[in-house]
């Protein structure tokens, strides 16, 4: 795992196993992470007419937030456990519908329905993960593909749960009777979940279960010989992935205020895979990087195309096509030139500057 070994300065070395498995390899990297969260805390502030970020930029950050949470789940499943899922968008959708249904029908405040939706999605994910106990590789991919279609059809027909083809309204997030529905306030809800879920995800990988996941991925036969219950860990991995997808989906549902069956197609499942491949399989930080890349790429394309529209007027007409093509192209280029993802590229960049000017 070249991608996860970190570069350390001369004289820094680890003397215990605990030190080797800390989330942040150096105090510096921890301080940077804390600083980033602090900066994000002030980002949506608006003082009079002054604002750090426009509402649209906040909207993009929120998107990165809820997609990252779901993508982290998929990364644990695909990058860490070596399984495959083509149905992640359906679990993301199930979380959104569950939270909307719970808050609309049971009177439970949205504050609690989001984690509950995560648990409901976990249950569904465990069921759909059962085939993983028996099948691997491409066969598993097709089995998870089925979960995508079964759930999508369920969304369109289960009137009692999803509102059927008409969709479901999702109530705004409230905290102590205060409604957090605008972008600027909902940002904090997503940020809080992002921090908590990422700490959970990173810690999971440091635990016994996390190491079991990696063992299953690296060599399932040896893992079994070592006493790891393959069936248990493969299915558990689907459950964990679904939990993250459910939380991400619920945040998405309450952000839009409306959940529609159409939003969770196979295309989104593929995009989730794209996020983790671009970010770096098996890398927690890479997940955020990959998601940010996937969310921002179409925006950058749009910005570039509208800038060029004066020179080449035909460009804006083909914009929709360009956006989709760019995402496909990005995945291909990453697979060829950077198979370890953005996380690896980031480490290389850091290493370059640490060794500067004596890099070799």
């Amino acid at each position, binding site marked *: 795992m070249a991608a996860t070994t970190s570069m350390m300065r001369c004289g820094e070395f680890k003397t215990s196993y605990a030190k080797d498995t800390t989330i942040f390899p150096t105090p510096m990297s921890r301080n940077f992470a804390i600083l980033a969260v602090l900066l994000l805390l002030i980002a949506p502030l608006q003082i009079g007419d002054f604002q750090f970020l426009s*509402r649209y930029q906040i*909207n993009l950050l929120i998107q990165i937030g809820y997609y990252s949470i779901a993508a982290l789940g998929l990364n644990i499943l695909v990058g860490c456990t070596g399984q495959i899922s083509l149905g992640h968008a359906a679990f993301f959708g199930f979380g959104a519908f569950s939270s909307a249904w719970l808050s609309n029908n049971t009177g439970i405040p949205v504050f609690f329905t989001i984690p509950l939706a995560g648990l409901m999605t976990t249950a569904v994910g465990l069921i759909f993960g059962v085939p993983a106990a028996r099948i691997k590789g491409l066969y598993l991919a097709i089995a998870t593909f089925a979960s995508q279609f079964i759930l999508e059809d369920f969304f369109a027909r289960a009137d009692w749960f999803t509102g059927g*083809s008409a969709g479901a*309204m999702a109530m705004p997030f409230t905290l102590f009777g205060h409604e957090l529905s605008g972008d600027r306030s909902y940002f904090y809800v997503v940020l809080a979940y992002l921090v908590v879920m990422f700490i959970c995800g990173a810690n999971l990988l440091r635990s016994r279960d996390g190491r079991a996941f990696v063992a299953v991925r690296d060599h399932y036969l040896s893992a079994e010989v070592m006493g790891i219950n393959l069936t248990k860990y493969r299915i558990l991995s689907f459950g964990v992935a679904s939990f993250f997808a459910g939380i991400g989906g619920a945040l998405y549902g309450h952000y*839009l205020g409306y959940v529609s069956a*159409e939003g969770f197609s196979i295309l989104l499942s593929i995009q989730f895979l794209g996020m983790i491949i671009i970010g770096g399989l098996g890398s927690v930080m890479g997940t955020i990087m990959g998601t940010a890349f996937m969310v921002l790429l179409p925006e950058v394309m749009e910005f570039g195309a509208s800038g060029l529209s004066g020179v080449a007027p035909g460009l804006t007409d083909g914009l*929709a096509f360009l956006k989709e093509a760019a995402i496909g192209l990005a995945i291909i280029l990453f697979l060829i030139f950077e198979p370890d993802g953005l996380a690896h590229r980031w480490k290389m960049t850091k290493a370059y500057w640490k060794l500067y000017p004596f890099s070799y």
Partner: protein
Amino acid sequence: MGKRMLLGAAAVAVLVGGTAQAAEKIAVGHLADYTGATSSVGKIYGQGVADAMAYINKNGGLAGAELAYETVDYSYEVPRAISTYKKWTGDDKVAAIQGWGTGDTEALVSFVAKDKIPYFSGSYSGHLTDPNGKNVKAAPYNFFYGPSYSDGCRALVEWAGEDWKAKGGSGKPKFVHMGDNHPYPNAPKAACAAYAKDKGFDVLEPIQYSLKPGDFKAQCLSLKDSAANYAYLANTAGSTISLLKSCETVGVNTQFMGNVWGIDETSMKAAGEAATGMVWVVGSATWQDDAPGMKLVREISKMSDPSGQEYRAVHYMRGICSVYYMKEAMEIAKQSGKVTGEAIKQAMYQKKDWVPAGLEGVCLPSGWTPDDHRGTTQVLVYQADTKGGKTDMKKVYTANIPRNPEWLGQ
């Protein structure tokens, strides 16, 4: 030298134009489907909306104020429509929106009510006609030009009843609803089935077929087995073409009846002889008509087709009507102050059964009241004739559906 002069003149024109534009702007959002499941008709309607707004701006705007409109193609995906809406209600709020599909419009009902933004949809779902929520969820800021889908379907049922008598059919005619499991085809399903039952039809189990064009022979076989006499096609034209062709292959004898988006001249051509005899709802004058208002329509058409040669299918005119009702309401609002969403909504109620100036004979006289957002309940039924490569159509029936209070919102 001559070239330089021209450039200079152009620059001055841009500058002058720029300052005039800077005077006042009324932001309008335009949501269109150019690449999604309903793009076959979405392109025609969207072009009508865009051309009409461009024409208004070119001809002095709204008493000097420019319509600053942004067209967004949302591919008929509800989540994209909602995120676009969020963008439009962010830092600069739009005064009104020209929308499109039923799924997104119905999803946005409570958003536009909260934000007080009049929403002129391409969806004529009956659910949008109840501003006070007497029968269904209140939709106080939703408007649309044309007969609701439910009223359109009721008119087709009336026509079918007369057709059955004229053809000397005995017993109960069989009626079936066909469409996707989607908010748009579902909108008139219950209301129309109830009406058909009242009118003495035997209402069969609905048959489902996709909004996306495909092969529908399986559905045509079910239709053939059901021996339905009249089938109401609730999808849009692209899907209708596929269905008509599949059913022609299978050999179905059912009389097809299409919703207002069910077919048009372009798709009649694509469907060929399979479309012959199909009846459908038309909500305005057609391109071949000689109504006085068609002069303005042809001028508007030149905004995107300077040659004036392009044929515009029926949906184009309804797009123009939708913009012009909004325009006149904005003008009334402007006279009494600022063009806000609330003022536009109130202005929509000012006149009774009116036609926007210049569009006489094109738009059906419509009027909205604070209790009833059914603009018009008059339905024109046309029949297609595509024998031997023609794309003819003629009006065969005009229905005036009563404004039954129980039908409000259904």
